[in-house]
């Protein structure tokens, strides 16, 4: 019995190579934090852990552990690589002094999200989500400002309520099906009304993580107040993991075949897109505006889950990768402008004229966020809209068509609020010239990102090749 379990433990650990590397790395970082004080070592250690885990994550290894708690498919493999790749760039953020706890928490967020990808047992679900949420609450508080604490407490209370609802949902489902493993819960559960209650409460937890409409209230204030590099990770890694987990739940419980669930999700998605776009129209604070933009983006990713077959999976991976790159770039730019003390759009007057290169880079990234041709943003949205159009053609459901129209409308409205920044920076006239300059490192990193964004538009084959060798299990 013992060696059996030992052997099965080793097998599970081998499956979670990526996570173990992260845990070991963060522990090393923790100890190093005690010993030395300068930030460079933290950054070096942080990037080493991520690099190691990047190597360990492999797209091809697909499998579920004997106890069934962990099941990894190629999608989670891809997303793990994406998480590691994206979080690597955090070290280049030019910001105030960050102690080791900051990097430790960032690593824990990445760990929590990657666990969410591979969880197949409802308990592991809950623990992974709790881990990510707790570390997010803490890191929001790390801005050590009055508003930072306020945002943190609100985020915590809101998150606490939704995770409580989720665990209650899990308990109901457990009551109905008698087991916690998703694979065999499906078999022996009778789809009574109470089952739907449990399912909705469970989905509630996921919607919170992804930031869909009823659960989106925390997004604007958290993104505004949390330290910018933390927000960069917060807005990408847990959100994408949440989507992957949501998809796993929808697929394994065969909810997508049930028309009511499709309608509920579509309605929530449309509401999110509208909320995000219309909300952003009135914002002055840059980060808060980007937060609303992020809400709109998550509203736009949702329909890919509804699309059956390979097309949906492809569109999901496409949109998510490009969204990650764009959001990382825009937050890096926001943090660079923050060094100039620029928080609101209004006080960006005339900076574009004084620093034309930076102005041009900001413009390109914003154009990508809107989704205009020369950038990858357009390819992502184009791909998304054509797959939605396909889905509409196949299923003929009017809700999908409304989704398409709302999507197109969001592009137009996105123009209104995203264009405020270049409008003020180029067309405004600065009262007093801005002293100082952007740091070389961050400028070169932003250029790298812009080149990436443009290159994906010009030759998208390589991304398609990667997206394609994920064989989607019944996406």
């Amino acid at each position, binding site marked *: 019995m013992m060696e059996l379990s030992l052997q099965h433990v080793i097998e599970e650990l081998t499956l979670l190579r990526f996570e173990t590397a992260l845990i070991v790395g963060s522990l090393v970082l923790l100890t190093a934090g005690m010993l030395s004080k300068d930030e460079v070592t933290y950054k070096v250690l942080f990037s080493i852990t991520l690099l190691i885990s990047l190597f360990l994550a492999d797209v091809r290894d697909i499998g579920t552990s004997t106890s069934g708690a962990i099941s990894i498919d190629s999608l989670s493999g891809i997303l793990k690589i994406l998480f590691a790749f994206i979080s690597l760039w955090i070290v280049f953020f030019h910001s105030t002094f960050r102690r080791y706890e900051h990097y430790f928490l960032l690593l824990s967020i990445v760990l929590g999200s990657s666990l969410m990808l591979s969880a197949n047992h409802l308990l592991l679900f809950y623990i992974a989500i709790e881990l990510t949420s707790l570390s997010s609450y803490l890191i929001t508080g790390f801005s050590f400002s009055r508003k930072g604490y306020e945002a943190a407490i609100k985020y915590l209370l809101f998150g606490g309520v939704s995770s409580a609802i989720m665990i209650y949902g899990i*308990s109901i489902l457990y009551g109905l099906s*008698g087991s916690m493993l998703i694979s065999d819960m499906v078999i022996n559960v009778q789809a009574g009304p109470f089952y739907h209650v449990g399912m909705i409460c469970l989905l509630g937890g996921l919607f919170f993580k992804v930031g869909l409409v009823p659960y989106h209230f925390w997004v604007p204030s958290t993104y505004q107040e949390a330290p910018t590099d933390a927000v960069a990770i917060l807005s990408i890694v847990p959100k994408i993991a949440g989507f992957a987990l949501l998809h796993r739940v929808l697929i394994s419980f065969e909810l997508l075949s049930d028309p009511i669930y499709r309608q509920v999700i579509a309605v929530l998605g449309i509401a999110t897109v509208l909320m995000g776009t219309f909300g952003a129209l009135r914002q002055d604070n840059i980060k808060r505006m980007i937060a609303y933009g992020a809400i709109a983006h998550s509203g736009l990713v949702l329909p890919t889950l509804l699309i059956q077959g390979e097309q949906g999976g492809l569109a999901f991976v496409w949109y998510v990768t490009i969204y990650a790159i764009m959001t990382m770039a825009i937050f890096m730019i926001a943090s660079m402008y923050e060094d100039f003390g620029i928080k609101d759009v209004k006080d960006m007057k005339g900076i574009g004229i004084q620093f034309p290169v930076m102005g041009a880079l900001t413009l390109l990234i914003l154009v990508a966020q809107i989704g205009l041709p020369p950038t990858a943003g357009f390819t992502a949205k184009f791909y998304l809209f054509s797959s939605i159009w396909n889905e509409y053609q196949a299923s003929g459901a009017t809700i999908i068509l409304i989704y398409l129209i709302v999507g197109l409308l969001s592009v137009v409205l996105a123009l209104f609020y995203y264009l405020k920044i270049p409008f003020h920076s180029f067309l405004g006239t600065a009262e007093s010239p801005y002293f100082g300059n952007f740091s070389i490192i961050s400028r070169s990193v932003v250029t790298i990102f812009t080149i990436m964004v443009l290159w994906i538009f010009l030759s998208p084959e390589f991304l398609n090749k990667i997206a394609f060798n994920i064989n989607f299990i019944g996406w």
Partner: protein
Amino acid sequence: MMEAISPTYFVFLSLFIFCAGIAIIIIKRSAIFVLIGIELMLNAANLNLVYFSQYDPGMNGLMTSVFVVVLAAAEVAIALAILLNIFKHYKITDPDELTSLKN
């Protein structure tokens, strides 16, 4: 021994605790009350889990409820740490007055 009391009894009980928790969160003004509410909701879930784990050979429910308790503790710890900081800056603990983050 337990057949005398049907499962719906316990489900009703956990449901009552859950809804009471929700009511507390919405009605009361202080952040601590919200924490209390969350604890109650978690306990309702625990009650369900423990009750149903009787009939589950693998005792998953029991294990989960242990973990839930541990996590609840962690969460309260963090909540209080943040509340301390807020208290130092704002001198209030009532979330209604925390309105500096306008929409």
